[in-house]
């Protein structure tokens, strides 16, 4: 299969001021996603990191319209999909896919793998040849299994006969069935053994090379995101606190939170450096701290941090951070 090199200057996905709030009893609101804006260029991998409960999965599901956004807009390939009806959205679903965290729960235990993989082909017509014939489906399924590295005999088997890693390969194959452009991977490896994690990440990387895919790769594990992402967005309590090229963000983090997260990655040669690893728990998204939401856990918090929420601003070209005292600036002062 020859795929033209993706046009890396083209913006494939653009998110503008996305909000997702839940009304709770007692007039409380839970802001799961709070005013998030970012864009993903074609062919790049945006890693979305943050502690559990920071809203990254909610964001991922909003992007695919699996959850309705409260306000803001999502543009896919220039088209606003935020408020499209399910019927109008259906053709676009072929181009936008998701890989879920729980590889077993996302496969119907009562259906054979061949049946599961064929389902998307049965409901979507081929853009050129029209309705998929049985032969076309068989050919496509064999192609997909080869692509994700599963034996062809898998088609006749049921999900419970596979290991976690194999099931995730099946999920990836299913997401690829309709040749999507964008795949949102929601913690696709966090439920797997470390050795299997590496295989699946490599598979994601290989597939990206072969098929020119674009990923939004959600994970709570920086070391996973570091392996695959071209850019990283760090989320804290529903907002993006830092976004930039992977190397820049992970080696010269500008936000204290990012810095503390990077400290949590075990390193074989270097000892502990810089800020201590993060302590304390993430506050409840129902009653978020005033001002900068991170101030109760931040070693550099000043009076202004408690009062005023910092905006997401450039510290360098293509490196944005929302902090009153970004670490880049601090380093200059102290060094």
């Amino acid at each position, binding site marked *: 299969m020859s795929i033209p090199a993706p046009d890396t200057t083209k913006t494939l996905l653009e998110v503008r001021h996305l909000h997702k709030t839940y009304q709770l009893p007692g007039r409380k609101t839970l802001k799961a996603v709070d005013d998030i804006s970012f864009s993903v260029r074609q062919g790049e991998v945006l890693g979305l990191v943050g502690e559990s409960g920071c809203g990254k999965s909610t964001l991922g599901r909003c992007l695919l319209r699996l959850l309705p956004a409260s306000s803001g807009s999502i543009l896919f390939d220039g088209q606003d999909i935020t408020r499209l009806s399910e019927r109008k959205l259906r053709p676009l679903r072929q181009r936008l896919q998701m890989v879920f965290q729980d590889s077993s729960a996302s496969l119907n235990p009562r259906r054979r793998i061949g049946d599961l993989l064929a389902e998307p082909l049965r*409901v979507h017509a081929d853009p050129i040849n029209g309705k998929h014939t049985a032969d076309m489906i068989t050919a496509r399924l064999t192609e997909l299994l080869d692509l994700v590295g599963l034996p062809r005999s898998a088609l006749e088997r049921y999900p419970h006969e596979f290991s976690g890693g194999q099931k995730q390969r099946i999920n990836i194959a299913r997401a690829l069935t309709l040749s999507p452009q964008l795949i949102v991977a929601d913690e696709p490896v966090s439920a797997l053994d470390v050795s299997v994690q590496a295989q699946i990440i490599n598979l994601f990387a290989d597939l990206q090379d072969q098929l020119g895919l674009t990923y939004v790769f959600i994970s709570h594990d920086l070391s996973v995101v570091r392996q695959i992402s071209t850019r990283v967005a760090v989320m804290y309590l529903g907002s993006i606190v830092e976004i930039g090229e992977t190397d820049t963000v992970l080696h010269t983090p500008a936000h204290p939170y990012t810095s503390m997260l990077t400290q949590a990655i075990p390193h074989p040669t270097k000892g502990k450096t810089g800020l201590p690893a993060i302590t304390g728990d993430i506050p409840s998204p129902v009653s978020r701290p005033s001002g900068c939401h991170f101030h109760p856990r931040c070693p550099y918090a000043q009076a202004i941090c408690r009062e005023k929420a910092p905006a997401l601003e450039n510290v360098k070209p293509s490196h944005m951070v929302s902090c009153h005292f970004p670490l880049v600036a601090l380093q200059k002062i102290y060094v």
Partner: protein
Amino acid sequence: MTTDLQTPASPAPSVSLWRQAARTLLADKGSMTALAVLCIIVLACLLAPLYAHYVAHTDAFASNVAGSIVLNGHEVDIMQPNDNPLHLGLSPIGPTGHTAYLLGADSQGRDIAARLLYGGRNSLMISACAAVLCLFLSTLVGVTAGYFGGITDSILSRLMDIMWAVPVYLFAISLSIITVRHGLQIGPFTIEADNLLIPIIIIALVYVPYAARPVRGRVMVLRQAEFVTAARCLGVPQWRVLLFDILPNVLITLVVLGPLLMALSLLAESALSFLSLGVQAPAASWGTMIQDGEGLIYSRPVVAIAPGLAIVFVVLALNILGDGLRDALDIRNATRRSR
């Protein structure tokens, strides 16, 4: 790469969860005994018209008060004088130990053993049909309420609550009293009062809340399941999700409920027939037979006990089978076994 890729998924031939469940069930002695007992009773009853006449040599439905049979060379009257000092009144003959009147006669001089078989046909047929109809209605209600949720769910669930608030037997008796005289008219269709469809419909109806509730619960869980989200994400239309993703998983609940519902239906049918509100004479069922035996309970208890025991055996067997099915179909057990 490593073993994750190279080894085949599992060396054994692929088995569906259904087949695995069947294997577990086959290995379960209790369930298999229950199934065997059930099969024997059902076959004996269903095949009654083929053999009962040749064994019993009487008509199970004709009154035989004046008749007599030959036992050990002596001619014996079927209705015999009572044992009391004054020899007042007549009692039907007791168990004979011969194929004719094996279990004795009832107050009409009819062979109890033969009637047990013919009555069983009606009892089993009504309870099985009522269970199937009830499962069908419950699936409609439960799946609609569970999948669509919101106001649809509220209306259906409250309706079920109202029905469930009325004691099941009281409800069934009330409905039967209405239909027992004039039959049932549904649109252009009229069902005669003595038609067996009437107890079937009534029993199925009163047990709908009992079965619809677990179905609704299961569907609500399935609706949130990640594979349903995954299907939506793939752009699978709702009706396909319902038909191919939700329903096959609801089927387990239905299969488990089936025998239990049949047991409940059998009890309800017997209760209604005992009160002359179910199967109407001249047709028989185990319930009407118990009623026949009520007047003879002190002199010839076997007339009431025989159909009573038949009910007990069938209900017990159905409950044991239901439990076995539930254990065998438990998906957690199934996946645990596969590892």
